[in-house]
């Protein structure tokens, strides 16, 4: 009869060290790993490689739902496709109307700023990635995307969708990257109210449909329906990307701060594609850094 930790396993004879000793070694190894993982450093490189090792498994896990989507897409009826084309055409026309005057507006903006030429777009380069795995719980809101370090994706890179900001790169592997969503309860995003220019911070709530703005004082000008854009003060996101729309403003006179909630514009639970973006360096709208601030400082 084996008694706990008595080395009873030795009864098999000649099978190497006892379970207890082997467990001790692995436990020690785990603790060392945890310690260095917390500290960061060389283990990040190891993790980068390990991400590549588990990537096939992640693809396998995703394959049933991918196959299902593929089936659905291949068996779409003609009418459904036609109506989709129709709606896309309408969307394109609306977008064209909006962008028609953009060149003129950019020139006008340049004149107002006293520049001789219009500034180029702040988004210099973009890369489309496909969502492989979604983890949306109250504890974690993460996406796994099929683009990684091999495509130039880097840590803390802004990630957007067609509707607005969705998150930033949290961890990269060679072929995949993990994105922390703006609704993750550990994420905070500096934003600005587009209408009034009030700057604050939008915190994730753990729910895919809500952001919280807990640091707005009672008399700041924020109304339901206001659009929030990134303020560009976080050294991650360029200025002016749409983030969300204010859904609830509660002002309790006994409290110093107003209670404000917003809904993210990006469809966090249903989007299948995201855009990694690279901001142009030294552009007034690029994420604030020490250099950018010195560039922006008026020379007069």
């Amino acid at each position, binding site marked *: 009869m084996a008694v706990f930790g008595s080395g009873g*396993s030795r009864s098999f004879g000649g099978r190497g060290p006892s*379970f207890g000793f082997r467990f001790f070694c692995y436990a020690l190894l785990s603790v060392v790993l*945890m310690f260095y993982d917390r500290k960061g450093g060389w283990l990040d490189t190891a993790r980068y490689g390990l991400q590549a090792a588990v990537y096939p*498994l992640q693809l396998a*896990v995703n394959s049933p739902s991918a196959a299902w989507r593929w089936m659905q897409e291949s068996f779409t009826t003609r009418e459904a496709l036609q109506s989709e084309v129709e709606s896309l055409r309408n969307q394109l026309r609306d977008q064209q109307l909006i962008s028609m005057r953009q060149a003129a507006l950019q020139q006008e903006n340049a004149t107002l700023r006293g520049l001789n030429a219009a500034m180029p777009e702040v988004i210099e380069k973009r890369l489309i990635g496909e969502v492989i795995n979604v983890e*949306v719980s109250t*504890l974690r809101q993460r996406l796994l995307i099929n683009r990684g370090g091999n495509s130039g994706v880097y840590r803390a890179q802004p990630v957007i969708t067609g509707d607005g900001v969705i998150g930033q790169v949290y961890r990269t592997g060679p072929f995949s990257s993990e994105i922390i969503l703006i609704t993750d309860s550990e994420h905070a995003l500096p934003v600005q109210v587009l209408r009034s220019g009030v700057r604050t911070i939008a915190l994730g709530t753990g729910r895919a449909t809500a952001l919280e703005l807990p640091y707005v004082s009672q008399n700041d000008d924020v109304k339901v329906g206001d659009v929030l854009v990134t303020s560009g003060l976080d050294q991650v996101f360029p200025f002016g990307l749409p983030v969300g729309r204010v859904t609830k403003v509660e002002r309790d006179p006994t409290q110093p701060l107003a209670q404000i909630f917003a809904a993210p514009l990006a469809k966090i639970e249903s989007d299948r594609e995201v855009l990694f973006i690279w901001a142009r360096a030294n552009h007034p709208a690029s994420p604030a850094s020490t250099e950018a601030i010195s560039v922006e400082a008026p020379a007069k």
Partner: protein
Amino acid sequence: MNLARREPRWAVTFTMLVALILQALPLPTWLESVRPSFIGLVVIYWGIYAPHAGGIFAPWLAGLALDVFKGDVLGQNALAIALVAYISMSLHQRLRNQTLVQQSLFVFAVLTLNEFVVWGIEGWSGHPVATPWRWIQPMIGAMLWPFVALLAGRTHTRS
């Protein structure tokens, strides 16, 4: 020496992979919160019925894969699963003589310990996770144990 060749190493690898996939499969939130540790169940099975096939290395590696997969602190699941493997292996001679239902009590206790270790490490590493559901998961795991044991029993011939 001949004994080593009869160890069901392929069965261990296969079941571990299946457990990893089950563990990582995206599920709706309500199912997600009650998903038991499939890796824990499989590791307990091999700990009891073939303690020398995977040793502690295979469970540890599976735990490490889970850490990378879920983006947890490296080593947290690895440590917890290695502990589960160690306890099941140490008690395997006693547990083998029990019925599946009796074993599921042990499974409940060990899976709770597993959850407890992970919870402790999460707290220490600054990602405190406060959901009462995680304490239900070992119970679900214990209820699934007879089925897991029967299914896993099919993958090898018991000595």
